[in-house]
C-alpha cells in the first residue's frame, strides 16, 4: 500500500489544486464547511465531523439547471457545466450519502442531468475516521468509520516515523487516475482499527416502521419540533429541492430566465403546500414523522439504500435536541413490545 507523509500529501494536494477545483474542510468562523482551497494550508487539518456535509459539491444548495432565452423564438440551454472538482477529506459516511442520492438521481430513469454532470466531474478522496465521534452512528445504518463505499480514494492516518502519514487505498478507476503520479512509497502497513461507539440501538426493518406509523410515540417525539430546515440541510442524504424559473435579464423582445433549483425541506410547513393552499401534511407532527419514514421506509423501499448514513449531524444541529437515535431506539422498542 502506498504511504504518504504529511509533506507529500500537502505537495500532492497543492498539485491537485492547480488542475482541479479543490474543496476540503475549512474553518469558516468556527464552522467546518467544505470550501474551495487554494492549497493544502487552507485545510482544517485534524477536523472531526464537519458542520455541513460535502453534499454541497455534488448537490449544491442552489444552482441553475436550465437557461431559458425567450425572444422571437425560445432557446433552452443546459446550465453551465460544473468544473472538474476534487473533494478532499470526505468522511466515509458522507460518501455513502452520495451513493444514497445516486439511487434516486442516477440509478433510476430518467436520471438528473445536472446531478450526473456534478458526479461525473467530482472525485471524492476520503479520510477514514479513527473513531466514531459524539452522536455518530454509522454502524447502525450499515456503514463503518473506515468504509470505502462511494469513495474514489481512501486515506487512513497511520503512524509515520516522522509525524502523520497516510495509507492510500485506491477504490475506483477515477481514483486510480487521480493517484497516478502521487508521491509516497510502497510499504507494508496494517491499517488501524477504528474505535466504535457502544450501546447503539439496532435499526428496525422497514415493515417495523410501517407498523408503528400511527403510534402516539410520534406526537411525543415531534411536539417540540420548531419546523426549521436545519436537520435536512446538514444531512448528507436529504435531497429534496424546489424549482423556480427566475428572470436573469429582461430587454425589449428578449428575456433570459434560469430554472433555479434550491434545497427544500419536508420539515417546513410550505414544502407540501399545494395549489389552492391545501397541505396534505398539515401538522408539524406529520411533517417531522415524514422525515424519519423517508429515511427508514419510503426511500429504502423505493430506491434501495437507506436515507440515513449515521453521520449524526442532525442530532447536533437540531435546536431542540430531536435525536434520530432516540427515535430509532423508540421504534425498536415499539416493535419489540408489539411482537412479544
Amino acid at each position, binding site marked *: 500500500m502506498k504511504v504518504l507523509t504529511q509533506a507529500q500529501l500537502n505537495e500532492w494536494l497543492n498539485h491537485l489544486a492547480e488542475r482541479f477545483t479543490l474543496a476540503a474542510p475549512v474553518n*469558516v*468562523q*468556527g*464552522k467546518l*464547511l467544505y470550501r474551495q482551497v487554494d492549497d493544502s494550508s487552507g485545510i482544517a487539518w485534524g477536523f472531526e465531523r464537519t*458542520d*455541513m456535509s460535502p453534499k454541497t459539491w455534488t448537490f449544491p*444548495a*442552489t444552482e441553475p439547471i436550465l437557461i431559458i432565452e425567450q425572444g422571437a423564438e425560445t432557446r433552452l440551454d443546459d446550465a453551465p457545466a460544473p468544473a472538474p472538482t476534487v473533494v478532499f477529506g470526505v468522511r466515509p459516511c458522507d460518501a455513502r450519502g452520495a451513493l444514497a442520492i445516486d439511487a434516486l438521481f442516477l440509478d433510476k430513469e430518467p436520471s438528473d442531468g445536472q446531478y450526473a454532470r456534478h458526479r461525473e466531474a467530482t472525485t471524492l478522496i476520503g479520510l477514514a475516521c479513527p473513531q466514531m465521534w459524539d*452522536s455518530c452512528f454509522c454502524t447502525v445504518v450499515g456503514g463503518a468509520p473506515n468504509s470505502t463505499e462511494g469513495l474514489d480514494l481512501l486515506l487512513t492516518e497511520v503512524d509515520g516515523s516522522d509525524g502523520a502519514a497516510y495509507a492510500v487505498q485506491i477504490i475506483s478507476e477515477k481514483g486510480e487516475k487521480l493517484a497516478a503520479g502521487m508521491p509516497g512509497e510502497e510499504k507494508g502497513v496494517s491499517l488501524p482499527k477504528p474505535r466504535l461507539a457502544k450501546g447503539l440501538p439496532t435499526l428496525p426493518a422497514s415493515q417495523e416502521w410501517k407498523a408503528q406509523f400511527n403510534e402516539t410515540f410520534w406526537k*411525543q417525539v415531534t*411536539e*417540540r419540533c*420548531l*419546523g*426549521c*430546515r*436545519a436537520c435536512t*440541510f*446538514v444531512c448528507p442524504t436529504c435531497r429534496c429541492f*424546489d424549482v*423556480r424559473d*427566475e428572470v436573469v435579464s429582461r430587454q425589449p423582445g428578449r428575456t433570459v430566465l434560469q430554472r*433555479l433549483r*434550491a*434545497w427544500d*425541506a419536508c420539515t*417546513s410547513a*410550505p414544502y407540501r403546500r399545494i395549489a389552492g393552499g391545501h397541505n396534505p401534511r398539515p401538522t*408539524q407532527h406529520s411533517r417531522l414523522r415524514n422525515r424519519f419514514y423517508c429515511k427508514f421506509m419510503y426511500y429504502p423501499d423505493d430506491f434501495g439504500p437507506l436515507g440515513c448514513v449515521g453521520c449524526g449531524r442532525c442530532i447536533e*444541529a437540531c*435546536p*431542540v*435536541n430531536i*435525536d434520530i*437515535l*432516540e427515535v430509532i431506539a423508540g421504534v425498536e422498542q415499539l416493535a419489540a413490545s408489539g411482537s412479544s
Partner: protein
Amino acid sequence: MSALEEQIRSAARQYLENGDVSVVIGYERGPKGKVRPAFVHQADDAERLVWSPECNLNLVTYLHNYKHSPRRGVPVPRVAVVVRPCDARAVNLLLHEQQIKRENVKVIGVTCAGSEVDGELRQACTVCQERVPVIYDVLVEPEQPVEVPEAQDDYGDVAEMESWTPGERLEYWAKEFDRCIRCYACRQACPGCYCFECVAEQVFPHWTSIALELPEKYFFHVMRAFHLAGRCVGCDACEVVCPMDIPLSKLNRMLAKEVEALFGYHTGDDPETLPPLATFSPEERLRL
C-alpha cells in the same frame, strides 16, 4: 433537584391536576443530558421538568401552536408555559398583538440569574437587570435573592458596530451571512415571527429568489430584523438556535436601541402600552 425545579414541578402538577391547563411547556433533559423543550400532559410526568442556566430558548414561541381550537366544538387549549423575564415580555407582546388570550395561558415565571450558551453566560444576560418576569401566575423563586449586576450601558455591545461606516457593516454581515444556510431556525424559534406565510417564502408575490445565496440571506435577515423592530424582546433565541452561530442578536439590538431612543419603548414591559408600530401619536412627527 434545585429549589427552582421543585417549584416548577409543583406548579405544573397543580395546573394539570386541577385541569387548569392541558399541557405544561417547560424543559427536560434529553438522552444525552442536553436540556430541551418538554411538553407535559399528565401530572405524574411533571417530574420530567428541569431548570438550569442551560434553559436558553424562548418557550413562548410554542404558544402559537395552541392559539386555535383543534376541532369544531373543542375550545382553544389552555397552556402553561415556563418563562424567564425576557420570555415573559414575549407573552405581553402576544397579548398586545391579540395572538393569545390571557385566560388561556398560565405563566410560570422563573426568577432568572441569566442563561448560558455552551457554558458561558449569554452576552445580553451580563448586563440584564431583570430578575423577575413582568407577567406571571406563579413566581418561581430561589432561596437566596439573585444578584443584579450594576447598571451599565445596555447597548454597549452594539456601540462598536454603530461606529462602523455602512460599507464596513456590509462587509461584516456579508462575512457572517456567508455561512447562513437559510434553515429558518432563527425565525421558527422566535415568538415574534409567526406570519402564516413568511415574506421569504411567499410565492405570490415572489419577493425574493428561492436561492440560498448571499443576496437572499441579506434580504431575509434584514427584513426579519425590521419586522421585529419594537417587537424583539431580546431573548436571543434566534442566535442560540442558529446552527451556524451567526450573531443575529446584534441586528435586533441595533433596532431595539433605535426604537427605545425614538419612542422610549422597551418591548413587552407592560401589557397596556401598545408597541410603537401598532399605534400612532401626532407627537411622533416632531420627535422624528
